[in-house]
């Protein structure tokens, strides 16, 4: 079971709202944005699909 960064961020918030320390297993907002941003980019700019189309045109 691999935990999503968002869940880890959520769990760490309980520390943030109580002891004031939530860094130890928080992924960090910036890093999390990079992660989800890149995932979104990979989804939208699907390079493997682009390659497939290139191959398809080449085949044609």
């Amino acid at each position, binding site marked *: *079971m*691999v*935990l999503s*960064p968002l*869940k*880890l961020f*959520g*769990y*760490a*918030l*309980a*520390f943030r*709202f*109580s*002891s*004031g*320390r*939530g*860094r*130890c*297993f*928080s*992924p*960090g907002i910036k*890093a999390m944005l*990079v*992660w989800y941003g*890149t*995932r979104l980019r*990979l989804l939208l700019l699907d*390079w*493997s699909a682009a*390659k*497939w189309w*290139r*191959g*398809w045109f*080449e*085949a044609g």
Partner: protein
Amino acid sequence: MPDKLILRDWQQIRGWLEPRLQGVRLISLDIFDTVLGRYVGDPEEVQRAVCRAVSQRTGIDAETVWQARQHVEQALRAEAIQAGFDHECRYSSLLARWVAALEKEEEHHYALKHFILQTELDLEAATLYVKHDAQIFMAWVKEQNLPIIAMSDMYLDGELLCELLRRKGIVDYFSFVYVSADFKLGKYSGRLFEKMLQVNGLEGKDVVHIGDNPVSDRRMACRVGIQGIWLYEKAELRRRERQTLSAQMAQRGGIWVGRHFFECVATRMQQQDNLQPRSFFFRYGREVLGPAFSVFMQGLQERLQQQAAAEQPIEKLLFVARDGFLFERLYRTTAGQIPSEYVYLSRRVITAAATAEGLSWEQTIVAFYNPKQHGLESVCKVYGLPQETLQPLAQQHGFEDFAAPIHQWDDVRLHNFLNDQRVQTIIRREGQKHRALLQRYLEQVGFFAHQRVALVDIGWNGTVQKFLKQAFGQRADFPVLHGYYFAFVPKLYADFGENNVCEGIVHDSRRGNACERIPAEFEEIFEQGARSFEATTIAYREANGRVVPVLKADSAPDRQAELACNPLVAQMQQGIMHHWEHFNAVQQLTGYSSQQLLPYVHGLLERAVVYPTSEETRELTQLVHTEDFGHDHVLALANQSVGWGDLLHPRQLLRRLELSAWRYALFDRIPTGMANFAFRMAYLHTVKK
């Protein structure tokens, strides 16, 4: 020119090939990412890992070793181009020059070459898995009596690639292996295909080549007349993209390192085990306790290495019963050189020996911490004292019912009872017997025969270590004692004395990190996961000139409950062992330290303890917990779940939460995990920051 085919899986390839079999004389397969998949995204990670291993062996900085390899590789590739070949480099040539660059003494070359070669092959083999569908396809081709050859653009020599295929159990499918490194010709230029056709005396139309690269495996194959098929596996490509991203994020540190690591472990486990139906307890061991215990074992190994590097090596490892049982099993699977032993020690036998000088009031009240205590009867059970001898004396001091709970710890009757010299004489006599047997047992396991000994246990207070020092610390041969605990929470004692070092690897309350204290929130599950199937040690006895442990009888009520849970614990431990195997393989490859993995593991445990799934709550509460402190009680891991109506009775609710071993499981009936989150915050406010 043949069709430029794009097919999405092996099933489609078979469907295309089946009606055309008559015209085909040879099937050619690309190997990497076509027949063999990788658990890690980048093949460079294997080379980096080899450099780290070389660095450890030679003492040369890993980056220098890496640079030397790169330099030699580039030189060889340049030479190949100059000689009119493709920019290829053969591993055996690379190895010879690389070793010469690293090691000046020629007589050491052979051993170093052998070491590097074996390490590289071992690591490559550890990162690769055979794609299930590809294997089914190859078996089908063999049934059609068609020969299969391997065609790979790879720096390993052909015979080394054969060795890899042998280790993966698929070498017999191939009649020949063409590797770009052997011929200095690549698929990407089409020249390796031409060479293959020439060697086999075939024409392009006789051959079908399948691979995952649209250029090398399809376009170039088709250019020389071979039917190239581009295997376009969308899910596999997505997985590789995710792996690459995960590896990039790991550069940022924090939880990302652990996340990348355990993603690789999960992929590896999934590829090898996904077809096996597994029980809940196996899965829980594999996915929750496995990462925690594995990172503990890695931390332990690192500490043992540090001791050796500081020329203060640990000479003997003692895994303390009963929760050191699993750790001892895990240690035995490593190449650890330190002699180790599973020792039958328990709080019960240690505290019994501690009464050799009499029983103080402070010692007595330890038995009353248990909410289910039975007064003096509990004291006798905790310290192994004879009830039948002490009972008449207790009566004289006003204890009519020997088993009545004592809630007023300052009870005058108790003070009078303890101040009675007849009572103390009986206790001392018994304590001295216990102590003498314990001493002989410790001598027998070699405790006093080494300068530096380590105790390995789950935690928590370090009672065994504390009392050992107290009872035998005056002996001149008492060793320097290192206690390595999964979690160390010294609530009962602060001072462990000189030359008596304790450390919690996954959690140490002295570090003051609130995020890592999660094992202390549900100690029982970690104890259950690590414990032995045997009963707790309640005393020692002599048998054939040796001191042997006396275990609690199977007829005891708590032991009965334990026996019923043993099959579930066994399944959990199988899961943990399974995780450990894959953990080691990935650790060797990535080289991450336990410190780098811990933040993610703490997050993983936070999820498991504070936000359990319904299935986890339902299954884990089947387990019962027992303790080795002389009581016969069993502890249920969770009481009845909290409902909305309970919120109307906050005091009762608070009391229930206080008494529960696993508080967060009580919110099982309230969906979304919001109640767990709110309670977690409230709880964190109350504990010491």
